[in-house]
């Protein structure tokens, strides 16, 4: 005694796979999957056949063998008896190093150029336009080659020699040469940890003081001085402890000896050249992002801030930039990604990054092309995906704030 009858049970027909939109997607996906597997299988079969014919095999055994070559700039201990794997890790770290340094300087350059392009100063605005256009419209490889040539023209360590040298160290402690930049290196003596600890505590102290002052300002309207107490908290205790402990931190100043400068920290020429080239190139792109971000802010914001009596500098830092940042940061992070990927052009200046070690000398010496290129791509993919993950996390955070 049912009130209504069931709809007639549909029997599934093969033609539904083509004509029924509910099932058609399965057909398409099935076809796509089959084609994909067929394609991959075809390529793999070819690979196997080709390798067998050439008598080769895929093996990662070479990674454990001694690399046999030296690397001029390394963040970890490395000598030519270490394995190819360790050389690759040195390469990864070098890639990250130049990418990190490059991102910082590119950001600074980009913000200056982006703001400068909007400056009321005609000359500065024009100069910045020239800079941005010149670097955006010429391939990064050509810029790397040009800048590498410019770095080469700097004075050689030989010019620092003699009674009347052609070149002198900056303040007597930093040497700019065409082999790299030599800067003083701190020497940690006994007891230095006390000074460092005190310094870290001072930094925390500064933040505590500032947040206290801010709270006081908001709660009571009383304005505490910000500038000189911060500096005092930061420096005075550390300096006192430094002298009480008997000056436990020394400085090693680079000195000219033999063929080259010795001592200090050496930033080798390839690193300098690549760092410089990537920063100015990416800086031009970041400048455009910054400019677009600032221009995206409604003019009314500037006028409203001005009517509150803020001065132009404060309008920029308190009103415009905080809002513009939300527009600026996502494209800037993708520029960071580009910079990291462009750092693979290190090969043109002889910087031993990942492409130079694993994709360069290791590949040449072992002849293991497939294995090396595969690893190379995986490493870069890993780095890129990490940066993308950060970007997405940031985007999501900004989005939440908006709603």
């Amino acid at each position: 005694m049912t009130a209504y009858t069931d709809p007639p049970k549909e029997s599934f027909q093969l033609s539904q796979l083509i004509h029924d939109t509910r099932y058609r997607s399965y057909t398409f996906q099935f076809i796509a999957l089959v084609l994909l597997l067929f394609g991959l299988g075809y390529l793999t079969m070819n690979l196997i056949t080709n390798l067998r014919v050439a008598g080769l095999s895929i093996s990662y055994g070479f990674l454990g063998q001694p690399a046999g070559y030296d690397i001029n700039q390394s963040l970890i201990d490395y000598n030519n008896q270490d394995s190819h794997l360790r050389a690759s890790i040195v390469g990864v770290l070098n890639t990250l190093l130049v990418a990190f340094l490059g991102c910082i300087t590119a950001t600074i350059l980009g913000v200056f150029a982006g703001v400068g392009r909007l400056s009321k100063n005609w000359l500065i605005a024009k100069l910045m336009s020239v800079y941005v256009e010149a670097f955006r419209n010429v391939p990064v490889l050509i810029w790397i080659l040009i800048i590498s040539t410019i770095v080469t023209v700097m004075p050689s360590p030989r010019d620092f020699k003699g009674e009347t040298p052609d070149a002198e160290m900056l303040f007597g402690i930093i040497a700019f040469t065409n082999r790299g930049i030599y800067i003083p290196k701190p020497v940690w003596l006994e007891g230095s940890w006390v000074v460092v600890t005190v310094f870290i505590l001072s930094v925390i102290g500064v933040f505590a003081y500032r947040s206290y002052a801010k709270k006081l300002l908001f709660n009571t309207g009383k304005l505490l001085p910000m500038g000189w107490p911060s500096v005092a908290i930061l420096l005075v205790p550390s300096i006192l402890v430094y002298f009480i402990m008997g000056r436990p931190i020394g400085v090693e100043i680079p000195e000219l000896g033999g063929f080259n400068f010795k001592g200090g920290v050496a930033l080798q020429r390839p690193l300098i050249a690549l760092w410089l080239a990537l920063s100015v190139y990416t800086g031009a792109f970041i400048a455009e992002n910054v400019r677009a971000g600032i221009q995206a802010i409604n003019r009314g914001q500037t006028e409203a801030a001005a009517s509150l009596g803020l001065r132009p500098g404060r309008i920029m830092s308190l009103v415009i930039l905080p809002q513009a940042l939300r527009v600026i940061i996502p494209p800037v992070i993708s520029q960071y990604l580009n910079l990291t990927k462009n750092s693979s052009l290190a090969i043109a200046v002889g910087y031993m990054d990942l492409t130079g070690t694993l994709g360069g000398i290791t590949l040449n010496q072992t002849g293991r092309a497939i294995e090396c290129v595969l690893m190379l791509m995986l490493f870069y993919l890993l780095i890129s995906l990490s940066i993308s993950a950060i970007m997405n996390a940031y985007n999501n955070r900004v989005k939440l704030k908006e709603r």
Partner: protein
Amino acid sequence: MKKSVFLGALTVAGLTAGAAAAATLDDVKSRGKLNCGVTTGLVGFAAPDANGEWQGFDVAVCRAVAAAVLGDPTAVEFVPTTGKTRFTALASGEIDLLARNTTWTFSRDTDLKFDFVGVNYYDGQGFMVPKALGVTSAKELDGATVCIQTGTTTELNLADFFRTNNIEYTPVPIETNAEAQPLYLEGACDVYTTDASGLAATRAAFETPGDHVILPEIISKEPLGPLVRHGDNEWGDIASWTLMALIAAEEYGITSANIEEMSAGTNNPEINRILGTEGELGAMIGLDAEWAKRAIAAGGNYGEIFAKNIGEETPVGLARGLNAQWTDGGLLYAPPFR
């Protein structure tokens, strides 16, 4: 859709028939061209001139093989390769012969599955320093900054040399010879190291070559020679014996000038066998009787090629040294043609 057609057309344009695996000789013959891998540019060894014609010592080997196999020394397609791409280009069949001053080493011959067909230049790694430094021996180079051309065996030799002598150095790897020069000249490195022949060629291009010295130490053995894929022995024999024919031609005094005269027949049976007027040597390697005659006529014998491209009269200015005939105290020693 229009675009995909274009791709199809490109594919047609780019595809060239040819089996990578075996029977390279048949491929080369049916193609009518020899694909020969060379460097992207090294003065004296392989570099295109202002008209785009490849010239050089390695190039001459390619031309000789083309002349022997195809009867035309210009039937060569030169494929520029880097240190990185050269082995894959050969292994994948993109090129038939690699003549890119490649050092004959154990692992390349065995692990990478190639066959070196002989040695066309005996080299060794050396150092060049400015005279002003006052260095007379490589062992005085403690703490020096060294420019190296990468992608070669030089990096390994260098590391070994400094390790065995227990001295320090800073390597500056450079992609091409041309890029190493300004670094060295501007003092970004104290020393430039590569094969001694390369050093001489590089120094020759300097504004004041006299201000630079090549140190006496030769720290490695670098037998440079052409190579082919492992497994196609017929093709390997052809390349190998073409090179031998060039060397033997110098030993027996066959030059591009007198080759016509000599091929009319001489009273030296060895010369007759080389030039194909006696015996059946050509047929044994699948070629006609005059293969070696054409190879020699293409650019002259080994001595002529050497003198024309890298000899003392050229800007490169290399002495024969180890590369003299065994009869003159060198290492060149062609096996008998019989």
